[in-house]
């Protein structure tokens, strides 16, 4: 009797889960496992015949592929800048917006707006600013600090990509931080005010510790999204000049789809990207959770 009831329960469970599981298995699990398997082969994507090469692809990607190494390094640099700047800007905006009386809704609306746009659209609009508007401002308004090739010079295009990514992403995190700040008990702030704490001290000793869980999420989201950066770079520089601003995602894309169509090798690179993101995220969550408990 009990067994049949349990079996019945399992059948009902599977019936409800099946549609989601079917799509998920075909378009997520199978590509994930398939990719892991292909990464151990020399498949070129077309030829039905291929051979197992073990970890040779991984060895090549990590030791004998300057363009991959460069794209990894470029991405890591980008991620570090993004994690620090994006979260700092988002927290600053959230605190400032929350401290305003009238007009709060306006500011929030405006700062979030770029997030509604695809970074392809945003990136092209910024390309217009960096090429046409900036040269106009240099010529007519004498803003000589803008006088550089934002897109053609690898050093500056790094900053151009950074600016556009921050422009597009900070508003999203700001919304999360605003929600966190609104969750800080009012009594705490009032008590601090009575004790004579100024705005900075209140922020440092009350708001910041109280929004720590949101910062964990903010850093997690930034790590995740900036390791996968593609759209803004595609729109602004296309990875150029040469391959100077090529991010890992682009390097993988190129390897698989445009130049060599080395599927096996590109899959190995994709697995390396996954492992990097996975390890860093795990370490980050571990560290932040420990501190969260202490705070």
């Amino acid at each position, binding site marked *: 009797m009990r067994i049949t009831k349990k079996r019945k329960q399992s059948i009902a469970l599977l019936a409800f889960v099946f549609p989601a599981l079917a799509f998920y298995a075909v378009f997520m699990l199978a590509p994930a496992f398939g990719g892991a398997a292909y990464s151990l082969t020399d498949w070129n994507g077309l030829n039905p015949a291929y051979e197992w090469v073990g970890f040779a692809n991984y060895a090549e990607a990590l030791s004998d592929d300057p363009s991959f190494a460069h794209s990894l390094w470029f991405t890591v640099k980008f991620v570090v800048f993004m994690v620090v700047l994006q979260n700092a800007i988002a927290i600053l905006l959230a605190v400032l917006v929350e401290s305003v009386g009238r007009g709060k809704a306006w500011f929030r609306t405006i700062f*979030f707006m770029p997030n509604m746009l695809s970074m392809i659209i945003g990136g092209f*609009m910024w390309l217009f600013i960096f090429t046409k508007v900036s040269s106009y401002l240099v010529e007519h308004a004498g803003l000589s600090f803008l006088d550089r090739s934002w897109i053609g010079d690898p050093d500056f295009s790094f900053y151009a990509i950074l600016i556009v990514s921050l422009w597009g992403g900070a508003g999203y995190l700001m919304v999360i931080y605003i929600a966190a700040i609104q969750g800080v008990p009012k009594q705490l702030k009032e008590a601090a005010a009575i004790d004579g704490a*100024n705005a900075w001290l209140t922020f440092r000793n009350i708001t910041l510790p109280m929004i720590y869980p949101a910062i964990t999420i903010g850093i997690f989201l930034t790590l995740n999204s900036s390791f996968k950066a593609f759209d803004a770079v595609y729109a602004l520089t296309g990875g150029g000049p040469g391959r100077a601003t090529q991010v890992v995602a682009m390097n993988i*894309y190129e390897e698989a789809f445009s130049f060599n169509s080395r599927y096996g090798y590109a899959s190995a690179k994709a697995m390396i990207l996954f492992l990097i993101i996975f390890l860093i995220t795990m370490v980050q969550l571990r560290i932040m959770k420990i501190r969260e408990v202490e705070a």
Partner: protein
Amino acid sequence: MNRPASESAHPKLGFRVGYALVIAVLIVAAIFTLFPIYMGVLNSLKTEGEMLNDILAFPSRLQFGNFADAFEKTDYMRSLRNTLTIAVVGLTGIILFASMAGYKMSRTPGKLSGFLFATFVLSMLIPFHSIMITLVKISKALAVQGSTFGLGFIYIGLGVSMAIFLYHGFVKSVPRELDEAAVVDGCGEVRLFFVVIFPLLLPVTATIAILNLLWMWNDFLLPLLMLTDSNDYTLLLSTNMLFGEYNNDWAAILASLVLAMLPVIALYILLQKYILNGIADGAVKS
């Protein structure tokens, strides 16, 4: 803002200066945020010559020629319809399938349920770029590549994880007594879910709908990989293609960018409150 009121000789004045500073910073940030959008809209209304002459000035005469041109060249209505088709197929599937799965797993104790849930949730850490190569191969083999419906199906597969996670958590706040009462009243499992439970999930359904709609609408790489025929192009893809074609005719390019962003800006203005709340809820729960 930084100055403690008590230290200032004129506490009120100190506070006011601080407040003015806050507003000033916010206004500068707001101008910076809107500047690219403003420049895009402004210059899309000028002729190329007028734009080169003075990029900051208002157009001497509003002209919509660029828009007519871009509308036609991006095949706007068809691109819009393609984008909508993908979003509707994807959203319907994600909401329907994920709510069923999330609900049932949340309500069923035991190892099987836990295992299934873990299978869904763990993959949330796998980046799209790690699966895209093989995904293209599989989609080709299944003849899902190259169709807007097929792309919608792929979004279902990629999107259910997060939706299931959110539904799974939310269902815990729906009292179990409701299930029992409905069963006592002779309600079958399927009717129980669709008639009693699903309507109660509306708040989280709204969040999931918003997050996924924005994702599908603004996604570029997956459509680029999957849509091979320009008849199936989404708004983003046609805009991108136009970009290559116009080759520096900025006035025309900007018009196509403005056209591509119109639907999302309209959506944002209409549903602002829900979108902002949905983003906050989605992030806090996942």
